[in-house]
């Protein structure tokens, strides 16, 4: 028998929402415990700050330029390489439970496989194996999908409609009447995407994902080697956790985040030091992407709204931690505790009030790029607890899974197995991590390329409808951890900037040709 693998991802979770990363709001004892016994990564970055490209990176082990999912709404081809296929070929039983999002959600034609897996609309969800003739999808022999609520054709929504139809209307409508990301909110402060959700906790998608993961694990023979990607849709907005849990944290007691400048003058001064699309979005005069509410103007965000969002986000993080604890207990009960590797991370971060902004977009700063990442190797592997400060990325996850399984990482993977300590990282050349952004939406295109290396983050802008290609950002993470002072034009840092840009260009990943088409907004 080999090592079992539980890959746990959340959606849009900030680095600083975990206790082990210094977070003081959400109680996350389960993940903190994994970090204490395993390896915690201080500088893990996503290769994209939105879902579909980032999740495609986790699955393929490739940068977005190479796998080709260059923005949300671009579908990952079904024959794209997949680490799940590699593990399955090596004899692993494989499952993905929760949010997949390798193909667009907004699909009235139901032409994407992942939206059709739960079977024809109108009835209860079909078995998670996809029906007659099914073998696997992207290497997953078992796939049960969920998203952020009760809408759509995925397994969770279909289960809820079938088993608890009275709960379908309890969730927040993620999209508004024009199919834009909804700007409304009905919490105490009117914050966007905040909603009072009376759904019983047992029916909420976080617990459903854990329940279905446990059900799949229970279906396996004890001698099986398995890889399960348990993918929670939270704490991505909407912030509508079960109302029964909201009282855990009174938003009135929540301190404002360190990255939130409290006066409008400070916010505007900081943002004005960055490329112009920052201010244009802040003022509500430009929406360059689909990932934030189109009608919401960031400049209108109030401190109390931010407190309420932060509190609800923390509650969602706590529910995930507790759900993970349930799954880990079941793993122990099955006798797999000593032989199971657990990796916990997310697909990208959340601005969370930094600079007076929320949600996400073409903004390569820690709020969005820096991820929680914890790897608790199986006890049988004998790895020592460690904290890694070297830069690593989600692109390194797939080769890590291969290493755990004792399988050679295929050549198409572009990262390498995560280091087990800083000495290991130095020896194997973990010096830099790259992040990229491309978006084109109704005549507005934005393109960023970022390198994080040696304590600096440097972003260059390619020409687009808002930028002429000369803009950039450069931050000293030690002196300016909140990235409030853009030093891209600082003459004193020009040699460093040139070196970082040269390094970025030298390590840019191959670009998939022909380019994949944008097929839907998300």
């Amino acid at each position, binding site marked *: 028998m080999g090592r079992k693998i539980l890959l746990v991802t959340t959606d849009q979770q900030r680095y600083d929402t975990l206790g082990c990363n210094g977070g003081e709001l959400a109680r996350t004892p389960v993940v903190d415990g994994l970090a204490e016994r395993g390896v915690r990564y201080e500088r893990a970055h996503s290769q994209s700050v939105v879902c579909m490209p980032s999740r495609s990176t986790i699955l393929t082990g490739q940068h977005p330029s190479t796998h080709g999912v260059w923005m949300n709404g671009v579908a990952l081809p079904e024959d794209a390489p997949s680490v799940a296929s590699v593990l399955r070929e090596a004899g692993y039983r494989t499952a993905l439970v929760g949010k997949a999002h390798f193909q667009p959600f907004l699909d009235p*034609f139901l032409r994407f496989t992942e939206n059709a897996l739960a079977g024809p609309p109108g009835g209860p969800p079909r078995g998670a194996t996809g029906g007659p003739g099914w073998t696997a999808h992207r290497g997953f022999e078992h796939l049960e999908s969920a998203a952020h609520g009760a809408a759509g054709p995925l397994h969770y929504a279909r289960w809820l409609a079938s088993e608890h139809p009275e709960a379908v209307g309890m969730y927040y409508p993620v999209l508004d009447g024009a199919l834009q990301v909804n700007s409304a909110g009905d919490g105490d402060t009117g914050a966007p995407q905040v909603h009072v959700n009376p759904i019983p906790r047992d029916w909420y998608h976080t617990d459903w994902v854990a329940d279905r993961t446990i059900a799949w694990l229970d279906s396996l023979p004890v001698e099986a080697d398995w890889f399960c990607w348990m993918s929670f849709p939270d704490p991505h907005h909407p912030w509508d956790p079960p109302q029964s849990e909201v009282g855990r944290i009174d938003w009135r007691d929540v301190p404002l985040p360190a990255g939130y400048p409290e006066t409008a003058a400070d916010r505007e001064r900081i943002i004005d030091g960055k490329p112009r699309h920052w201010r244009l979005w802040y003022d509500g005069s430009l929406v360059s992407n689909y990932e934030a509410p189109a009608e919401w103007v960031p400049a209108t965000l109030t401190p109390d709204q931010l407190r309420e969002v932060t509190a609800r986000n923390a509650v969602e993080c706590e529910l995930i931690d507790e759900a993970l604890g349930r799954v880990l207990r079941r793993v122990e009960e099955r006798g797999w505790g000593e032989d199971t590797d657990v990796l916990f991370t997310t697909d990208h971060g959340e601005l969370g009030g930094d600079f007076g902004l929320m949600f996400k977009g073409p903004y390569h700063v820690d709020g969005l790029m820096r991820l929680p990442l914890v790897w608790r190797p199986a006890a049988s592997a004998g790895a020592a607890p460690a904290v890694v400060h070297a830069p690593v990325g989600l692109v390194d996850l797939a080769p890590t899974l291969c290493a755990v399984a004792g399988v050679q990482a295929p050549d198409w993977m572009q990262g390498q197995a995560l280091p087990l300590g800083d000495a290991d990282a130095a020896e194997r050349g973990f010096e830099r991590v790259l992040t990229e952004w491309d978006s084109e*939406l109704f005549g507005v295109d934005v393109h960023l390329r970022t390198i994080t290396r040696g304590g600096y983050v440097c972003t260059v802008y390619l020409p687009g409808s808002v930028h002429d290609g000369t803009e950039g950002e450069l931050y000293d993470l030690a002196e300016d951890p909140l990235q409030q002072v853009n030093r891209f034009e600082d003459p004193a840092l020009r040699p460093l900037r040139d070196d970082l840009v040269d390094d970025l260009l030298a390590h840019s990943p191959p670009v998939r040709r022909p380019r994949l088409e944008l097929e*839907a907004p998300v």
Partner: protein
Amino acid sequence: MTARRGSVRREVRIEAAADDVWAVVGAAGRLAEWFPGIVACSVEGDLRTVTTASGLTLPERILTCDRLQRRFQYRITAPFFVEHTSTIDVLDLGDGSCLAAYSVDAEPSVMALVIGGAGGNALANLKRLVEGAP
């Protein structure tokens, strides 16, 4: 603020005579043969009704079916749309091949991308169908 109205175009070059491609595109009732995700299609006069794989029924009005220009235009008349026009053009490239273009203008803008994205997928399928590729 984001644009309320959206405009999207997709195109594909097809190694077949324009008239052969038009024979498919211009036959309004044959839509389900080449548009993935449309499972049923009926035509009565200038009214077409399509049913998608998700169970959605969309009423449409055919605006243009011009054999000489090889242009087909239709409007989805479901109340959700403030405005919608889709145009499919088949352009003879003069070398035995043609260019098929699917253009969508819609409000709300998101629907231009939803319909246009699916239209692009349909063009790729049309190319396979007409060229006889697997």
